[in-house]
């Protein structure tokens, strides 16, 4: 039985696909057979972030509609063993992700994989609800910014009422906060919500804090999951988050601004 982890946020542009790519890569790198599924029908992008856009032949909707088998559609990652990508369809209607179809594909994947990571589209419409429904765990990706935090809270409400686990009265979906684009300098200046602020408001366990970093754009330019940038702070922060997802205890890093001398602080720098 695979564990289904949905990466979600409500708001767009907060780093769901970046996070899905890194979490799935991290889990696979730790030896788990992992598949990452793009649920964003019509706006497929996980393939670009994972650098397999030219290897897409069949997609998620083809499998649902019986036009291809799962094995034909799954793309094997070239960098990390036991990591597979199931791309979204670029041309179909969102409604092509039928409830029964998604369930069937997830059940089939569940037989051979350890982890299924679902990259949710933004919003709270069909595709997002499909990605949410089957979740065992949800990684709520949030920026330290008012609209993102509010939307994350909305998504938590949906998880608690409309997920499969909620409907069937099973144990609730595990909810984790992943704070991305965190800028400790601005937090110290009182210009950005702190980790504590966001944790207080959303009141769910903190999975990780990814510092705002130029590495993230650099990595996506090249189709490299950020977590593979082992030397970078963002890469290491993702590695910590994946370890915590598996129950490991890791101290939080990169939460403090670089120490500046007194003169630099007074006169700017």
């Amino acid at each position, binding site marked *: 039985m695979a564990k289904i982890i949905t990466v979600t946020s409500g708001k767009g542009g907060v780093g769901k696909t970046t996070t899905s790519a890194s979490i799935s890569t991290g889990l696979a790198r730790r030896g788990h057979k992992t598949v990452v599924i793009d649920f964003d029908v019509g706006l497929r992008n996980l393939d670009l972030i994972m650098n397999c856009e030219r290897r897409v032949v069949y997609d998620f909707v083809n499998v649902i509609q019986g036009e291809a088998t799962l094995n034909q559609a799954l793309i094997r990652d070239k960098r990390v063993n036991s990591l597979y990508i199931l791309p979204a369809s670029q041309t179909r209607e969102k409604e092509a992700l039928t409830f029964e179809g998604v369930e069937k594909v997830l059940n089939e994947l569940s037989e051979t994989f350890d982890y299924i990571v679902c990259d949710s589209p933004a919003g709270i419409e069909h595709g997002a609800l499909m990605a949410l429904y089957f979740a065992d765990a949800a990684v709520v990706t949030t920026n330290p910014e008012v609209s993102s935090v509010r939307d994350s809270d909305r998504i938590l409400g949906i998880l608690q009422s409309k997920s499969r686990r909620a409907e069937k009265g099973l144990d609730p979906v595990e909810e984790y906060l992943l704070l991305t684009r965190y800028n400790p300098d601005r937090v110290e200046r009182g210009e950005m919500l702190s980790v504590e*602020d966001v944790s207080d408001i959303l009141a769910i366990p903190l999975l990780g804090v990814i510092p705002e970093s130029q590495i993230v754009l650099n990595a996506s330019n090249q189709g490299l999951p950020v977590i593979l940038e082992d030397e970078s702070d963002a890469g290491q922060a993702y590695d910590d988050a994946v370890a915590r997802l598996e129950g490991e205890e890791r101290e939080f890093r990169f939460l403090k601004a670089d120490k500046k001398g007194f003169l630099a602080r007074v006169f700017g720098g």
Partner: protein
Amino acid sequence: MSFFDYFKSRKKNTSASVAKERLQIIVAHERGQREQPDYLPKLQQELVAVIRKYVEIEDDQVQVELDRNDECSVLELNVTLPEH
């Protein structure tokens, strides 16, 4: 950070603390609504209609709230009657 910002940032009313305060209020409000049963708005409408048979009131003069406790739920109905 410049000379003046250094002192400014020590104060409590930074934009981040304003953000936190606003979020706490709106999130609490939206969570409250989320936990309300679907029939509540309709119940409120019908209650207003019944009361209007006897007293002239506006829609916002009737407030219906449901408080859920472990043992039981309390339906709180607040009607503000016009002054005479």
